[in-house]
């Protein structure tokens, strides 16, 4: 093996990059992390909540040391039209069970902790500089990085540059994600006292809620709203498919959608009196299995969002657990390949094998057709919320006029949309879910 400055260079210190650096450094490798933010998390944003199972494999005691905002024990899903909302609220002790639990996080604090774990394990850091290029040898093998006109070499580069995959496209030849495969996320953080959050969400101290909204929050466009309770703030935002939000058929810019969402009668009371402290934007890869690019190369592996590892099921949004798990698998394969003296694509193939045997690729593969089903299911975002409002009104509204039997009140609402059509749409969706 040629002499190099480091065994491993990691590009980016988000959930994936920091875990990869920690894993490789813990195995005794010399590791350099190059992070473009001036501090960890400076360029990062999540909705967000992390499902802890993958993190627990890397850090068995993470609960006692990670800066977690709240344990999420309430799952809420809301269907809204312009003036109505039908929401379900689910809570159970299983949601809080060790290994199945999930936590709201804010990335500056959370990524700072992850980076400190990598540093404590021996990884070196360069902050505030973006890698401009992956350096290759004559055969096309990645042998290092170029950043701010310096070339630094390593046996293997682990690419964890996030959702906007510049280096993956420019230096590894992966395709640019399509606008239909990416969503734009926009989020604001509202400060509220701890006890007010617990009162507004009916949660015990230290616990919190996750909410997903469908319908008028995106003015009927493919996408949805989200809300996560932090310890002393609320993360509120929405995601919208880049292709449909950009399309001429959509007259409302995403920031105006967010503003309208904030003033919806079911949302405004949640943030009443709260202080807005940050406005952020980020992309989310939502194309699922079909957008996963090649992720093992001669001298290089790709992890986390850069590999398209995210899943938005509408009722469940995952990304950070995929990032952590893929990074751990990648770093283990990288360490093994360096020890074996073969860091070619073939030598690094243990990463792909581990991924394919794991929940990461299995889950993305199981729900492979879902992104396209959702994209083509426009009534889910436009007419279903209206239908649910009409049903809710038929069920709950009393004006004193003599009432017909319930089935007679409900059937016209369903019939005018076509019973057969609705059943067919539901069956199609259930098949890909």
């Amino acid at each position, binding site marked *: 093996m040629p002499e190099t400055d480091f065994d491993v260079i990691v590009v980016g210190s988000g959930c994936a990059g920091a875990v990869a650096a920690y894993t490789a450094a813990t195995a005794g490798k010399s590791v350099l992390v190059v992070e473009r933010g001036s501090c960890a998390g400076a360029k990062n944003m999540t909705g967000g909540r992390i499902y802890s199972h993958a993190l627990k494999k890397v850090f068995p005691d993470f609960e006692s040391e990670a800066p977690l905002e709240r344990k999420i024990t309430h799952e809420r899903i809301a269907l809204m039209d312009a003036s109505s909302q039908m929401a379900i609220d689910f809570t159970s002790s299983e949601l809080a069970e060790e290994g199945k639990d999930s936590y709201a996080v804010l990335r500056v604090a959370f990524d700072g902790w992850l980076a400190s774990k990598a540093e404590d394990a021996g990884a070196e850091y360069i902050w505030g500089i973006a890698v401009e290029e992956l350096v290759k040898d004559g055969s096309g093998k990645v042998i290092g990085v170029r950043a701010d006109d310096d070339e630094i070499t390593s046996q293997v580069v682990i690419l964890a540059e996030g959702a906007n995959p510049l280096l993956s496209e420019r230096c590894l030849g992966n395709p640019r994600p399509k606008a239909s495969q990416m969503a734009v996320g926009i989020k604001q953080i509202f400060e509220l006292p701890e006890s007010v959050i617990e009162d507004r969400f009916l949660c015990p101290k230290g616990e919190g809620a996750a909410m997903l909204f469908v319908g008028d929050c995106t003015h009927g466009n493919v996408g949805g709203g989200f809300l996560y309770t932090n310890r002393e703030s609320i993360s509120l935002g929405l995601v919208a498919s880049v292709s449909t939000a950009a399309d001429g058929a959509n007259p409302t810019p995403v*920031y105006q959608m967010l503003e309208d969402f904030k003033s919806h009668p079911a949302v405004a009371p949640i943030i009443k009196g709260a202080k807005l402290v940050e406005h952020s*934007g980020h992309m989310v890869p939502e194309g699922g299995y079909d957008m996963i690019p090649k992720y093992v190369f001669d001298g290089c592996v790709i992890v986390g969002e850069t590999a398209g590892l995210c899943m938005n099921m509408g009722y469940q949004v995952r990304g950070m657990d995929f990032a952590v798990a893929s990074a751990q698998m990648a770093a283990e394969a990288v360490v093994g390949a360096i020890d074996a003296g073969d860091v070619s694509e073939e030598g690094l193939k243990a990463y792909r094998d581990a991924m394919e045997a794991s929940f990461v690729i299995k889950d993305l593969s199981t729900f492979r057709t879902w992104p396209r089903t959702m994209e083509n299911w426009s009534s889910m975002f436009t007419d279903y919320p209206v239908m649910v409002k009409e049903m809710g009104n038929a069920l709950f509204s009393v004006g004193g006029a003599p009432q017909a039997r319930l089935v007679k009140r409900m059937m016209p609402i369903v019939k005018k949309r076509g019973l057969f059509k609705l059943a067919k749409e539901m069956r199609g969706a259930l098949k890909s879910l």
Partner: protein
Amino acid sequence: MSKVNEITVNVDEFLALDKYEIDEENAHIELVEDADAEEFLKLVRVCPAALYKIDEAGVTSFDYAGCLECGTCRIACGGTIVKKWDNPRPTMGVEYRFG
């Protein structure tokens, strides 16, 4: 031309809450000259920082200061009117305090 509804929100006020190190000398995003109006409207719709603006007279403007570095404009129009999209130079750009 496609339509953009009236915008009542002033996103610049929100961006004023965020922390930036603005690179006055170097634009990390550049558009082609005489950008196609329909393509520009796509960016008006999708940029979460509302950096792509069009006024009542149809005059377009774009300012990279205030960029949240999400890359959405690159994905939406990287093949058309977004000519250059690089990460900001060292230590420049947005610096989230919460994320």
